C-alpha cells in the first residue's frame, strides 16, 4: 500500500513498525509533526506518548525509558538538539539504545525554521561531552524517513548505542509516496542488561560513571572498539558513477539536489555521478574511496563545509583528488543550476 505522506509523519510510521514503545518529546518547528503523529497514534497502540517540559526533560525520560529496555525515541531540531546533547552523551556512556530524530533547521542560535545541514558535526562528531559516537543515518526521501527510522532502532539495539536520524526541514515538510512496511517488528529481549523491576534484572545497573581513571579509560577503549566494529554496517548509494568523470556527493536533501544536477549534467553530455552516504557514522569510507578514485569531487551541502571536511578526511590520502564545495546556508537551498555551474567549473580546472 502506498500512502502520500509528510516526511515527519513517515518517521512515526517507521517507529510503529519498528516496535517503538515510548515517545518523549518537546515541540519545535520544523520537527513538530513527528510529535503530533506520535501523540495521535502511540496511545491507540497502547504505547507511551508524553510531551515533556523541555528537551532536557525529554532526553532524560528517554534515558529512563531506554534503561528499561523499551524501544524509546524523541525528535527535535536546532536549539532543542543542543539541549539534548548532554543526554545523548549519557546514553552513549551508559550504552543505552534510543533513537533521536534531528530535523535540522538553520542556525546558529535561534536561526530560523528553514532547512540547513549545520548540525553535521554535532551529530557525527559528538556534540555532547566525552569520547563517544552516535550512529547517524541520513534519509533522503520520505520513504527513507520511515525505513531508516526502522534501521536506526535495529542498529541502536545491535550496538546498545544511541542512533540519530539526521534529516532536515526539506525532508520533514515534503510529502511523497510511501510504501508502508509489510510487517511490525517485535522489540528485542534485553533482560541481560536492562533494569525492568523484575527478579531477573534486579542486579542490573545502568550508569556511566567509573570513578577510577583506569576503569574509565577501559570503558572508553571498550566503546572505541564498539564504534570501530560498526564499520560492517556502513551504507551508501551510487547513481551513475560507473563511467563518471566527476562525483557529486551530498547527504539527505542535498543528495536530492545533486541527483537533479547529475541528470542535468548528463543531459549536456558531462559524465557526472552521485555518491550518497546513508550512514554518516559509521562513514562509508571504503565506498567513497572506491567510487571517487581518480575523479574530481564536488560536495553539495547546506552548511559551511562540515560534510566536505569529512569527505576529505575519508579520502585515500595516497591518491589525492580535488574536492570543491557548493553550498548555501540560513535556510536557502542550493539550486540545481548552481551545482551544474560548479561542476562544470571544476571539470574545466587544471588537474594539477
Amino acid at each position, binding site marked *: *500500500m502506498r500512502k502520500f505522506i509528510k516526511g515527519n509523519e513517515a518517521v512515526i510510521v517507521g517507529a510503529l513498525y519498528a516496535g517503538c514503545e515510548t515517545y518523549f518529546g518537546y515541540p519545535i518547528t520544523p520537527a513538530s509533526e513527528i510529535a503530533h503523529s506520535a501523540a495521535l497514534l502511540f496511545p491507540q497502540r497502547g504505547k*507511551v506518548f508524553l510531551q515533556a517540559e523541555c528537551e532536557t526533560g525529554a532526553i532524560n525520560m528517554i534515558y*529512563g525509558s531506554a534503561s528499561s529496555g523499551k524501544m524509546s525515541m524523541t525528535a527535535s531540531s536546532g536549539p532543542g538538539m543542543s539541549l539534548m546533547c548532554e543526554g545523548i552523551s549519557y546514553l552513549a556512556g551508559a550504552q543505552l539504545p534510543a533513537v533521536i530524530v534531528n530535523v535540522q533547521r538553520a542556525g546558529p542560535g535561534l536561526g530560523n525554521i528553514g532547512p540547513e545541514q549545520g548540525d553535521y558535526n554535532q551529530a557525527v562528531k559528538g556534540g555532547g561531552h566525552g569520547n563517544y559516537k552516535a550512529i547517524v543515518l541520513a534519509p533522503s526521501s520520505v520513504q527513507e524517513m520511515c525505513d531508516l527510522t526502522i534501521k536506526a532502532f535495529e542498529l541502536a539495539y545491535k550496538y546498545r548505542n544511541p542512533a540519530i536520524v539526521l534529516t532536515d526541514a526539506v525532508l520533514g515538510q515534503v510529502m511523497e509516496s510511501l510504501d508502508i512496511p509489510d510487517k511490525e517488528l517485535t522489540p528485542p529481549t534485553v533482560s541481560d542488561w536492562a*533494569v525492568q523491576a523484575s527478579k531477573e534484572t534486579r542486579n542490573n545497573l545502568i550508569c556511566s*560513571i567509573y570513578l577510577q581513571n583506569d576503569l574509565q579509560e577501559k570503558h572508553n577503549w571498550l566503546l572505541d572498539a564498539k564504534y570501530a566494529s560498526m564499520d560492517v554496517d556502513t551504507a551508501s548509494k551510487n547513481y551513475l558513477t560507473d563511467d563518471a568523470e566527476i562525483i557529486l556527493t551530498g547527504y539527505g536533501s542535498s543528495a536530492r539536489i545533486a541527483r537533479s544536477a547529475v541528470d542535468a549534467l548528463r543531459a549536456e553530455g558531462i559524465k557526472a555521478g552521485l555518491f550518497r552516504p546513508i550512514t554518516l557514522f559509521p562513514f562509508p569510507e571504503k565506498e567513497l574511496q572506491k567510487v571517487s578514485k581518480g575523479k574530481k569531487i564536488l560536495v553539495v551541502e547546506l552548511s559551511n563545509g562540515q560534510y566536505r571536511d569529512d569527505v576529505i578526511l575519508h579520502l585515500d590520502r595516497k591518491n589525492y583528488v580535488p574536492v570543491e564545495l557548493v553550498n548555501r546556508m540560513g535556510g536557502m537551498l542550493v*539550486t540545481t543550476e548552481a551545482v551544474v555551474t560548479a561542476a562544470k567549473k571544476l571539470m574545466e580546472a587544471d588537474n594539477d
Partner: protein
Amino acid sequence: MIKKAEGFYEYFQRKDGSKTKATHYCAGCGHGIIHKLIAEALADFNLQDDTIFVSPVGCGAFCYYYFDCGNVAAPHGRASAVATGLSRALPGKVVISYQGDGDLGAIGFNNAFQAANRGEKFVCFFVNNAIYGMTGGQMAPTTLPGQKTVTSPMGRDVATDGFPLKVCEVFNQLEAPVFIERVSVADTKRIMKAKKAIRKAIKIQQEGRGYAFVEILSPCPTNMKIGAVEAAQFTINAMEATFPLGNFRDRSAEPPLVANKIPQKELSELIVGSSTAEADTSNFTAKEFKFCGFGGQGILSLGLVLANAGNSAGKNVSWFPSYGPEQRGGTASCSVVLANQEIGSPSVDKPDVLVAMNQPSLEKFAPTVKKGGVIIYDEQIPVEFDLPKDVSVYAFPAAKIATSKGVPKAANTALLGSLLALDLIGLPEEVVLAALADSFAKKPALVAKNMEIVETAKAWMKDNILS
C-alpha cells in the same frame, strides 16, 4: 557505620570491589539513616524485585552501591525526568527518585516540579541539608539567610541570593501530588516520624496511587565544618525555623486518578494507504510544477490535489511547500513533481508549468519557467513587467469563474480546470477529479460545486484558447 538493613546488598562491592560493609558517607551525615529507612521499607514490603532506584548526582550519586534492587544513575538534576521515563515505561512498578537540594532545588527544579504536576507515579525523596555536599560546600537553594558557604562566604544575603526555597510549600500548590511531607533525621524522635512518612510514600507506589514527595532535613557536618552533634542541632534549631516539619498533604485514602481509556487499533487500521496502484514504469516525462499566490488562496491545496492524483496513478510524487524569503509578505508557493523515475530535488527551480495567483509571485517566478513551458495566471493580476517570450502564457479568469459560481475562494479549482483543459498534468482526468473530490472529504457538500467550476473552466479554455 549504620547497622545493615534488609534491602541493602550484603557487601557493597560496587563501592570498591571488596567485601566492604562501610558506606562512603561522612560521620554524622543523614544520608545513611535515610538509606536505611528506605531499604528497610523495600525489604519489609517485599518490593526489591519490583523496584528501580534512581540515583542523582551529589552525595547520593552512589546509592546503587547499596540498594539491592534495580538501579539507574541519572545525570545531575534529571532524576525526576529519568524516573518519569522509567515509570511510564514500566507501569505498576515502584520507582524511587532520590535527590539532593542542588540536584532538585536548583539545576533540576523544573523537571521535579513538572513531574509532580503531572502526578507521575514515583516517589521523590528530597534530601535537604542546606548546602552542597559532593561539590564541596557551596550555597544551595535551601541555604539559610546569613549562612556561610564557600560561595556565600559573607553569608547568604537574601537581597542578592534570594530566600531559601521551600519545595514542599511550592509543590503543595499543585493539584496532582498525593502525598507531601517534610521530615527530619536529626534525632531519634524525628527519625521515627521520617520512617513513617518514607514507608507511607513507598506504600503509595506499591498501590499505584500516584506521586509522593518526602523532603528530609538532614545534617551535613563536613561541609558546615562543625561537629555531628552541632550539625544535628543546626538542623533542628535553625533549619526547622525556615522549613517547618509536618504533613502538607495526604490524599492516599482517596481513589487515584484514572486515565481515559483509549480504544486500541491494529497498525493496519491506523496507517492506511491511499493507493494500491503499482509503481508506474511506463514512459512518462517528468513534470515539474510551481504553484504560487497569496496565503489563503488555496495554492498549497491545489498542489496537493495534483500530488495526490499522481500518487493514485502510481507515480513518484513530491509536494514541497516554499521556504525562504518568498514565504514572507504573505506569499506562499509549493513545488510539485510527478515522475516515473526517482525524483531529484523536490524544490522546483525551473518549472514546466507555473500557476500564479498574485502579482509578486508571477513577477518573481515567470523568468524561471523552462523554455517551451507554460504560465497560467489569473487575468486580474496587473502585468507591469515583461513575461518571457519563449513560453506559452495564458491569462485566465480563475477568480471571475469561481465568483460567478458563488464560491470566490475556489479560484484554485478553476485553475485546476485550466490545467486539465490544456492537458498539462499528464494524468487521466478521472484520477485528478477523484483527488479533487477527496480533498473535500471533510466538506462533501462542496464537491459538486467544485466539479462545476472545473467544467466551466474547461469550457472557457475550449472557447477562448483552444478553438
